[in-house]
């Protein structure tokens, strides 16, 4: 991908769906798996280059990146079998994008109207007299009860989800680590690399490490694309073997 095809950096996006949708619309594509696989690289490049990464939404960004990787890898490796869950996460992303696009389109109506021709409420009527008028709840006990409720409901201060951030390893780091480890062992498997092979993976553990695995996979594909490594999978669901050709001299 050359630089010129990627010129949306100046724009501030509202979130991952907005980013993705804009990438698709920019290429005048419709929302489907083909267009998504085409913009996957753009999206990943975008989030990699994001200077002010919206920390609160980083998990959303990465999760969508992971789905894009699935779509992309499916298009690169047509034989790749996806699990039901993976299939549905792809469908889900598509339908979310369609839905989001719909509201984005609709928001133009509001944008065109908002504040343009405002209907004004009448100013307080001069006919109104100030008259002392408490109601049945205007007593000390009730007020005490109400104020305590108010305090309990004061919006909590924004908490930056550190835990989430910690889990989401950056792509750069992952690619670096991948390059380094491949150079060392010249031949290793994806399982070892991603940590999948280290210990028995129960479902919970897998969920926990899902992002990391996905990021690993993504990094691997990136390396394949850059010609740094070759990958080989003998049997579906079996381990993927990664091999360097000539480290340091990428083939283009």
């Amino acid at each position, binding site marked *: 991908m050359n630089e010129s095809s990627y010129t949306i950096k100046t724009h501030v996006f509202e979130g991952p769906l907005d980013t993705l949708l804009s990438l698709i619309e920019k290429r005048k594509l419709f929302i489907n798996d083909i267009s998504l696989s085409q913009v996957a690289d753009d999206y990943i490049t975008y989030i990699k280059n994001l200077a002010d990464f919206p920390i609160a939404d980083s998990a959303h960004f990465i999760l969508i990146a992971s789905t894009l990787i699935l779509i992309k890898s499916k298009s690169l490796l047509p034989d790749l079998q996806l699990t039901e869950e993976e299939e549905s996460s792809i469908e889900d992303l598509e339908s979310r994008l369609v839905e989001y696009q719909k509201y984005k389109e609709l928001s133009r109506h509001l944008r065109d109207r908002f504040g343009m021709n405002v209907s004004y409420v009448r100013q307080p009527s001069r006919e109104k007299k100030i008259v002392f008028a408490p109601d049945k709840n205007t007593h000390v006990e009730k007020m005490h009860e109400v104020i305590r409720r108010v305090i309990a409901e004061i*919006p909590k201060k924004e908490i930056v989800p550190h835990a989430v951030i910690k889990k989401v390893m950056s792509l750069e780091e992952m690619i670096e680590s991948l390059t380094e480890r491949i150079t060392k062992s010249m031949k290793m498997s994806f399982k070892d690399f991603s940590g999948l092979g280290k210990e028995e993976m129960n479902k919970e553990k897998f969920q926990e490490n899902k992002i990391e695995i996905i990021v690993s996979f993504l990094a691997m594909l990136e390396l394949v694309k850059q010609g740094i490594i070759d990958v080989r999978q003998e049997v579906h669901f079996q381990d993927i073997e990664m091999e360097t050709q000539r480290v340091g001299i990428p083939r283009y």
Partner: protein
Amino acid sequence: MNTELVQKIEAILFYTAEEIEEKELAKILEVRPEEITVALAELNEVLSSRGVRLVRHDTAVILTTAPEMSGAIEKMIRTERERDLGRAGLETLTIIAYKGPVIKKEIEYIRGVNSDYILRNLLLRSLVKKSTEEENGKALYTLTTEALLHLGLSHIEDLPEYEKIKKTLDAHTHSEKNTDTDDAVEIKKEMEQEMEEEMPYTEHGY
């Protein structure tokens, strides 16, 4: 036609200068709620060519200046029009307008981002409110009458494409995937076509 009732309603709405529930009007004027509904329709008709409008939202009504008169009012009070809702605000308001009442989680699912801040902002600007109803203990957000006033609408149904969208939404929620009514499918297709025609979409239009 009950001219006297229409006049009384107009006087009360004029005096109170606030939203009032239809059933409260019925109580004050000692008539059946249906009579109020009929009289309001009539008042709406009478006012349609005037400087004042009847705005209805949910079960409440309020008298306001006609949206076409905004220029004259603004000149008098020398205010700048408030148009700085921002993209996030607009998007969120749009979802609430067309899909509301809606819980926060659903808004966030559609937008793909955390929407706490933007919702708080809309609440403080009195453009959305938490409905008195809840969904499994979660707050449901709806548009306020004030939001309608800012949009110059007399009724939420006057929003462009409102009925059409509601129809597709209902079709989606009532029937699961792939069992859209023919109607809804057609509307969806139509919308997709429209979108196609309208592109290229401009990024910086907001």
